[in-house]
Structures are given as structure tokens and as C-alpha cells.
């Protein structure tokens, strides 16, 4: 829906421009200006009436909205597999809070199952680094970008190795190496090949849910409240666990919006007042309706604006 032309490519089949705003209404404005087929991006498609002019659709929705019954007839799915051990109590309570908010507005809450959820992190961390390693091949120091500066005469391979080692940070190098491994001839079938098949199964999980009458899925955005920079984990795999709720949506290629619902009261690592977010997911090409319901959630949550002075980083 949104063209990738002009984005520095990371993982082509997963990349999409991300819209950051301070309100759902603002999101509709930015989205409307970007949506549609771009001939520069062969994988972009035309928008239909369910996923364009979202601002006008939202205005219409707002004007007709009746508090207490605005979401009557809307079925919201709660995936049981997302309720994992790693989910902190704070976030679990937030999830329940969001569910209650929507139920108060007339929505019907349904428990759903997405059986392949537990494989999504592994699938993502095979596909993304594989495609990224390919897209990053172009940064070789020859035509643009960082080039090794040395008086020594280097062979071509040495030139590439040194320019790229100097130019790429640790995490990028890690992902390139992982990606190269997954795409190598001996590993391809077991890693990239299998990951693509699993991706299809994950996508079908969501399709089945939406086909059965569920319009939206509600989940926390992250398993824990935001971590402080000073308290960041040094183990990259632990870091990757933070993506566990957003990664399956990315693999399935579904529209989703994450919005802050409330500030944390409980002391999480000695902090309070941190913004906690929930994620709403809709079926493909239903962005207008997604934004409508997101607005509804935003209204009822009535999240306090964050003041940076209150937080110790």
C-alpha cells in the first residue's frame, strides 16, 4: 500500500514506511498523502475505498459515534498464544484494561488461536537478516559511503573487507553474518527455505481468524514496559525478544497501529510514569476501519501526555 521507493532497504519483503504521529487523526492525514500505487515500486498496489481517504472516513465515524455503543457489532480477537511467560504483569493488566475499554463501547471480545505464533520470532530472524545482508551488499566503499583510508596497497577483497568492517556497526555486522549463513547453499533449505514456508503458515493463521468474522486483533505492543537505555541488555537474543508481538504482524503483512494507552503506575525497575502501548491489527486493506477503532481506543484511554522531565534515563 505504501511505496518503499526512497527507503534505505533493510529487508525488502518486510520493509514499509512507518508513520509516527501524536494522534490517530494526524495518522490519517499522513497516511492519506502516502497511500497508493507508485510505479517506482513494483510491489506497491492501488488503494481501494477501504484504505484511502481515511481522514474523511474518520470524520464521518466521529460524527456518527455514540459513546457506549460506537463499536456495536465489532468483534475483537484476543490471541491466547500471545499470553506468554515473558509478558510482564504490568503489560498483562494493560491488555485487560484495553479489552475492558473496547467492551464498554459495545465490542464483542472473542478468544482466538494463532497456533504458529511461537515460531514467528525465529522466522523473522532468518528472513530479515537474510534479505538485509543482500540489500547491504551495495555498501562497498566504491561508489559512495565509507571507504577505508590507508597508504597500504590493498587487494580488492581486502579493500571490501576493511571498508565494510569499519563502516558497519556491530549489530549490522551480526545481522549480515546471520543472513549470509541462512542464504548459503548448504543452509538455504533448512533456514531460509523453511522460514518462507513458516511465514506462509503464520499468514494463514491470521487469514483464518479474519475469515471467521473477527474484524480486529488487540495485543500488547511489547512484552514489557519500555526499557531504560542504562539498563539495556548486553545479550542480543534477549533484545530480539522485545519484538515478539510486532514480528508476526510484519511477517503476515497486515496493517497495524500501536498507541499509548496509559502511564505505568507500578515500579518497573524503579520507574513509574512510562508510556505503555497496545497494538490493534486489522485484515489487509482495512486501514480506514482500523484507524476508526484506534481513534475510539485513543478517546477512551485518555492517555496523559508524557513529560520527559519526569523520567530518569
Amino acid at each position, binding site marked *: 500500500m505504501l511505496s*518503499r*521507493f*526512497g*527507503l*534505505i*532497504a533493510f*529487508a*525488502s*519483503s518486510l520493509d514499509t514506511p512507518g508513520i509516527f504521529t501524536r494522534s490517530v487523526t494526524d495518522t490519517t492525514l499522513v497516511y492519506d498523502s502516502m497511500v497508493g500505487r507508485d*510505479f*517506482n*515500486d*513494483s*510491489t506497491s498496489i492501488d488503494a481501494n475505498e477501504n484504505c484511502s481517504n481515511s481522514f474523511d472516513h474518520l470524520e464521518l465515524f466521529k460524527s456518527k459515534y455514540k459513546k457506549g455503543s460506537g463499536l456495536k457489532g465489532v468483534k475483537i480477537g484476543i490471541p491466547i498464544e500471545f499470553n506468554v511467560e515473558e509478558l510482564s504483569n504490568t503489560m498483562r493488566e494493560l491488555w485487560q484494561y484495553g479489552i475492558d475499554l473496547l467492551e464498554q463501547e459495545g465490542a464483542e471480545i472473542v478468544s482466538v488461536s494463532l497456533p504458529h505464533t511461537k515460531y514467528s520470532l525465529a522466522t523473522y530472524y532468518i528472513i530479515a537478516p*537474510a*534479505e538485509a545482508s*543482500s540489500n547491504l*551488499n*551495495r555498501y*562497498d566503499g*566504491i*561508489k*559512495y559511503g565509507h571507504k577505508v583510508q590507508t597508504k597500504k596497497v590493498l587487494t*580488492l*577483497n581486502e579493500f*571490501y573487507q576493511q571498508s565494510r568492517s569499519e563502516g558497519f556497526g556491530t549489530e549490522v555486522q551480526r545481522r549480515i553474518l546471520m543472513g*549470509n549463513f541462512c*542464504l*548459503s*547453499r548448504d543452509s*538455504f533449505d533448512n533456514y*531460509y527455505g523453511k522460514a518462507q514456508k513458516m511465514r506462509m503458515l503464520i499468514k494463514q493463521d491470521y487469514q483464518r481468524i479474519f475469515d471467521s468474522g473477527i474484524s480486529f486483533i488487540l495485543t500488547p505492543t511489547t512484552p514489557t514496559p519500555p526499557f531504560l537505555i542504562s539498563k539495556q541488555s548486553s545479550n542480543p537474543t534477549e533484545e530480539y525478544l522485545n519484538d515478539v508481538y510486532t514480528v508476526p504482524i510484519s511477517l503476515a503483512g497486515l496493517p497495524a497501529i500501536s498507541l499509548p494507552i496509559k502511564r505505568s503506575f507500578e515500579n518497573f525497575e524503579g520507574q513509574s510514569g512510562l508510556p505503555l502501548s497496545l497494538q490493534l491489527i486489522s485484515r489487509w486493506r482495512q486501514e480506514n476501519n482500523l484507524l476508526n477503532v484506534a481513534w475510539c481506543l485513543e478517546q477512551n484511554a485518555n492517555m496523559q501526555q508524557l513529560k520527559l522531565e519526569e523520567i530518569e534515563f
Partner: protein
Amino acid sequence: MYRNLNIFRSYSTSWESVIGVEIHAQIKTTTKLFSNAPNSFASLPNTLVSLMDCSYPGSLPSLNTRCVSLAIKTGIALNCKVNKKSYFERKHYFFPDLPSGYQITQQSIPLLINGHLTITMPDYEKTIRIQQIKLEQDSGKTLSDIDRDLSMIDLNRAGTGLMEIVTEPDLSSSNEVAIFIKNVIGILQTVGSCDCNMDQGSLRCDVNVSVKRKGGKDGTRCEIKNLNSIKFITKAIEFEVQRQIKIIEENEIVTQETRFYDASKDITYFLRSKENFVDYKYFFEPDLLPLEISENEINSLKNRLPELPQLKRERFILQYKLNNFEANLLVEDNFYSNFFEQCLGLKRCPTKIANWIINILFRLLPNRRECTLTPFQFCFQVKFVIKLIIEGNKEPIEDIVENFNSQSNYQNLNFFCEEVISNYPEQVAKFKSGNINIINFLVGKAVKK
């Protein structure tokens, strides 16, 4: 001398050559395969480069459908099956003339497969199977001969569409390869999908050569690159076959390698070993959709195919009563088959015209591809023919006349022209030294006759 003896020796001990050919043909479109930069040969370096061609961050490929149409037409002309759904893949390797670090090509499921082409040799016919034809990007050019310390990269060619035509190893001699490539060139030019200009690099051929004893098991094949003309291809194959036979006869083993042909020494030399195998990490190109062709599109392209060389040759033989040799020569190059038929429009004598073209025009033109005569001039205007004969000057005039006389009894312009030229050497010399008007004197004499 030594080499010639070897040829006799090897053929007499029942060796067979097993040869396969890979032809890279640049697709004749105004823009490149995935970018809208112009596709042209002679331009200042790095002036035909779009963001996509130099892999600028944020650039994405956008398929030029005309390339697909031309490739499908070529494939149909070569009796291939069209894969209604084919995929583009990325082939990764690092080299300065490959800006993105990967080439967009087709690997597992190419556009066209399982074709064939029947070639007519002097004593027999042979069908050569075509394994596949795939679409891919051309790389840029690396020039190392301009500056001693620097390699210069010109990306004008980067991203140009290529059809890679791969045969099964059905060819058994350098002659067969030469005829096969000429036939393919004829088809490509007729369909209009490639210029087939080997000097300019719009058609490049690599050959895979191996030898085996008759009835023995297959040998190891070597790939030969840097073959810029059909003549070099023939010579390189002959050298390589000898080289491999010699190795095996000395009880050594032929190693699988890539070799380069050096035209000045008429040898192939080792470039790189195939045993250090490169892992290209192929996977499906995520920036492009699968290439889907409908039955209707295929039929529409099939109906728009012009008359192919094979059919044209048969028609020339049937309709104009030409013999095999004449028909073959005329049909080889689109330009000359058209020239021939246009001459027929002016002067109705097919065998005569064919004769003139083959025995006079071809022999006198320094380069067959550069014929500035029009059919009208050729048929009627003595002036131009004389000029050509004098400038051509490849053989003594007496020989040409001799040859010509033995082909036909008909008294015609050219015969008189040649007589005139041999009778007035002074005037010919004057013409050669720049006195152009003297030609009128010669013309006058010819007309009188």
C-alpha cells in the same frame, strides 16, 4: 604446421568433442531492463546511469516489459516453451562493475525452456537443444588499460537487458558451433531482439568444451571466455580440443577451469579454477513480482513474428530457384536478404542477382556490415559499382572477371566495367589518387560497350 598434423592425428584416433554454448545477447530496447536510463552503445562514460543502475540507496527495479516481449518472441522463434510464471532471483558476488553487489537474473524458473534449432551442415542436419533462455542484467565495464594504476569503471552498460541463451552440449565441432551461432544471429536479427554486433559487445559467446573417446565416458569441461568473433570462437575451440586431447594422451587429468582466449597468440590460457566454487546465495528477488504471461499474450507475440530465416531460406530455394549455398548466404544477414529482394523488384533475375551479390558485392566489401550501396545503385549505376571494384581491390581484377565468366554467359554491366578497368589502368590510377571525375570517362567507355 605442427598443429595441422595434430588435427589429422586426433581425428584418426576417434576423439569426440562435446561443446555447449552460452550466448549473452543484449536486448535491443531504448531503455534498460529495470531502469529508465537509455540503452545505447557509444556514449561518454557514466552518462547513461540512473539511480537504480548505480544502486543508490532507496532505488528499486521496475521491469521493462518490452524486454520480456522480445525475449518471448526470440524464444518462440527457437521453439522454446514459455514458462507462464517465472521468477527473478538475486545472484550475489562482489565486483566493482556490479554496483548492487548482486545481479538480478533468473535461476530456478527462467522465462523460456526446452527449445531447439536445426542447423544445416554441408552433409547432414543436426538439431541442437536449447536448455533455457533467461532474462538478466548486464554488468558495467571495467577498463584496466587506460591507466596503469587504476581500474576505470563505466556503468553505462550496467542494467542493460540480456537474454542468456544456453544450449545442451549437443555440438561436436567448431564448424557446427560457427553455423549454429550464425543461425541464432539470423533469428535474433529477424525478430529484432538484438543487434548481434560482436565487435561492440551486443552479442557475447562463451563455450564449454570437453573431449572424450568415441564410446568412452564424458570428459571434464572447460569454459572459454573472451571470444569476440565467430572466427575466434572456431580457433579457440580447435586449440582447446587439441590441448585437452594432448593432456589425456599423456595420461594427465583435465581440470575444470575457466580459460581466456588470446587472439594474438591463438591460445587459451588459465583464468580461474572452477574448483573454488563461489556460492551465489540465490533467492527470489523481493522487489519484483513473479513474471506472469498469459496464453493470449503468447499467441499475440507468436502471430507478430516475422518470417524466420529457416522459412525464408526454404522460400528462396523454392520461389527463386536458388541453390542451398546461395540461399544460406543471403539469409544469414537480414540486411542482405532484404537487399536481394529489393533488387528483384528492380531487375527480375534472381539467380543473377544472387550471383552478383555473393561473388561481387561480398568479395569487394571490406566489411559486409558496412554496405553503403542501395539496391538501385547496385543494379543500374555503373559508377558506383566501378568505384566499389576499385576501392575494394581485394583480388586482381582479372581473377574476378575470370570467376564471373565461368558462372554465367550473360553479358552484363559488371563484365564491361571490369574490362574497362583493366583496359585503362592509367585512368584507374588517377581515380585512386583522388581524381574522382575521371570515373565519368570510364563510365562512358563502359556504356559504349
